[in-house]
């Protein structure tokens, strides 16, 4: 779990250019981390690549926060 969280955090920090401390469990990509809607699509693409999983579009729409992403990826692996 923590390994997944670290890898997800690294992607979010790199992609959105935010401070690591801001990427908290409940941090919303759009509301708290300054992502636009296309950024969230790109994050999902990056998660798919990093973890070798497929995230269907309807599932991708439910991934709003850092915590959502870690939870989804942990369960998908």
């Amino acid at each position, binding site marked *: 779990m923590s390994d997944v969280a670290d890898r997800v955090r690294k992607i979010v920090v790199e992609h959105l250019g935010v401070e690591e401390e801001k990427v908290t469990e409940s941090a919303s990509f759009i509301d708290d981390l300054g992502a636009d809607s*296309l950024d969230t699509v790109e994050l999902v693409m990056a998660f798919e690549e990093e973890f070798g999983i497929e995230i269907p579009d309807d599932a991708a729409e439910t991934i709003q926060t850092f915590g959502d992403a870690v939870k989804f990826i942990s369960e998908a692996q």
Partner: protein
Amino acid sequence: MFDLHGKTALVTGASGGIGAAIARALHGAGATVGLHGTRLPPLEALKAELGDRAHVLPADLSDPQALAALPKQAEEAMGRLDILVNNAGITRDNLFIRMSDDDWDDVLAVNLTAVARLTKGAIRGMMKARWGRVVNVGSVVGATGNAGQANYAAAKAGLVGLSKALAAELAGRGITVNVVAPGFIATAMTDKLNDDQKAAILTQIPAARMGDPSEIAAAVLYLASPEAAYVTGATLHVNGGMAML
């Protein structure tokens, strides 16, 4: 100017006159080119003419599976895909009241829906690379309309709307989406016209001649180049003044 060394480009409809000219222009500027078409002999001949940095990628654009596979095949053949030129097009002309549903559907499928599908497949890599060029070949008819071409005009006008929406979505990612709209260009498509028809059309063109495919290719080359980074959502009309839009 217009140096495309290190860039890769997929040109659809490269077996036709305008598509082949576009492939030659991009290749001449240094790009590696993927030559899409449905007829193999002209594609193989073009590849032989260009020599290095050319790949033949046949596909039927009315087949959804082939459409989904083509951008991937281009990426596999060339390493990645930087430039997509949606040039392939068909006509099924008839007066609208006599136009069959199939003629409508076929023209919309190849000239509009296939462009959307191919572009969707191509932009993923461009988004990652933060650089990309989509150039869609439209038609003057998309802006002016033309009797006997309701299907073609609708598809080409649709291409403009599609291009503008994508331009807005992708501008922040270094990807531009533009249209080149040819007027009356000397190709196999216009060879079908008889001399009287040609003469009638020429009276409508201030330049008083047909365009050459290389003149369309030059416009595409510009829009594909790094120099055109600030041009997006635009339609560049290349029509000898036939319609000044």
